[in-house]
């Protein structure tokens, strides 16, 4: 705890619960994920300190109590308690509090809005092609899927899962990419965290049988 920036206002470490509780207080009012840098700026703390506090809170909410900087008098070893009903997650580049998945059914009874209908098979496949080939035009997605994707692309845009990302310099076609809301819905930090496509490429067991039959 020695990397603090010069602090013009209130020092969060002087408040009850210290920097950790101040960070928690800010997390409570977020309506979209916030990066460690944004949080650090708001709290007047060094990013490294905030990173450490975030990791600490994350572990603690999941049931692993760790020695907190302001609990020096308490026992030093981390002991596990029951997990809290919520968790702190780093998704789409930002931190945010979520209810724990174990309670999906119960929380779902209270939260009606935001529960979106499942995507159809056609929408899922189109979303997958866009996620892996972005930025990509509708024509290319159509070629890969073998069907017209115009209406599916419209629906995915309305649902905020994909967006325009400019025009192809050659063809002038609109290019599509996935949004940060898509990352949020997938629970990942970036599109690079999507499962690798390559292991799915070979195979096609059903088809290889008769192809092998006439390959000599």
């Amino acid at each position, binding site marked *: 705890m020695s990397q603090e920036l010069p602090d013009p206002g209130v020092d969060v470490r002087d408040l009850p619960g210290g920097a950790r509780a101040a960070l928690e207080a800010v997390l409570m009012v*977020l309506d979209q994920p916030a990066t460690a840098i944004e949080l650090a700026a708001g709290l007047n703390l060094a990013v490294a300190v905030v990173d450490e506090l975030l990791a600490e809170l994350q572990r603690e909410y999941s049931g692993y109590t760790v020695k907190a900087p302001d609990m020096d008098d308490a026992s030093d070893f981390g002991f596990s308690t029951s997990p809290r009903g919520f968790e702190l997650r780093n998704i789409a580049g930002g931190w945010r509090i979520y209810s724990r*998945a174990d309670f999906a059914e119960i929380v779902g009874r209270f939260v009606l809005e*935001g529960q979106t209908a*499942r995507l159809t098979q056609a929408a899922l496949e189109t979303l*997958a092609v866009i996620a892996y080939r972005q930025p990509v035009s509708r*024509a290319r997605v159509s070629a890969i899927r073998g069907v017209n994707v115009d209406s599916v692309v419209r629906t995915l845009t309305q649902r905020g899962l994909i967006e325009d990302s400019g025009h192809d310099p050659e063809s002038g076609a609109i290019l599509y990419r996935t949004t940060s809301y898509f990352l949020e819905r997938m629970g990942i930090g970036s599109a690079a965290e999507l*499962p690798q496509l390559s292991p799915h*490429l070979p195979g096609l067991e059903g088809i290889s049988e*008769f192809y092998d039959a*006439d390959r000599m």
Partner: protein
Amino acid sequence: MAESKPGFEVRLANFTGPFDLLLGLIAKHQLDITEVAIATVTDEFIKYIRKLQKLGEEWALDEASEFLVIAATLLDLKAARLLPAGEVEDDEDIALLEARDLLFARLLQYKAFKQVAALMAGTLEQEAGRFPRQVALEEHFAAMLPELVWKHSPEQFARLAESALKPKAPRPTEVGLAHLHGSAVSVKEQAEILGLRLQLGKPLSFRALIADADSTLVVVARFLALLEMFRDRAVSFEQVSPLGDLTVHWTVDGREWSTENLREEYEELP
């Protein structure tokens, strides 16, 4: 050319596109590609489309055009399969093999995307059980927000509404051209050519019937034409061994046959 196996069902509602359908058909192990009864698939499909049209479903046209791709793809595959194994004799054979490899690659790619889409569905499902905290700002903080700058008169606001509500001009539709062929080949024309040859009475092999075809497309069109003639009982097929030559016989009923019998659905195909 074998008839479809009993119990074979095409449930198109379960498929999301021609590749999907093709993979579905292939996954059914009994469906050697040379034995997929395109006529049966076509019948099922046309029945399905008619039903959709009756219901006034706008998807009918889309799906009908998709089906043309399926039919062409199946026929490409079939045509490729008709090459005797390991025998590459001329440019046409090579073209067929290339078409087959290209199709194979596209199917592989499609299958990979289908698999990752299923993985993504699982993740989305799992993540849907976690609800983010996104509560309204506490009142005392909301009160601190800077006073809104508002400069719109009701008339300006109405104009804004007009433009927001105006139906957006549909974006220029990009039409996938990958599956289109360079020249139009009429199934009807090809049927006439085949009819003239077969009416002489001598059974001919499919190889012989396509010997003078100058493109894959003509092969495909002749294949379709034969299927139509088979439907009308103008011809019968005989295949001694699974990969052997397909022999085409002109049947007695064939005397009555003319290309006028060709249903309109096929006139523009492929």
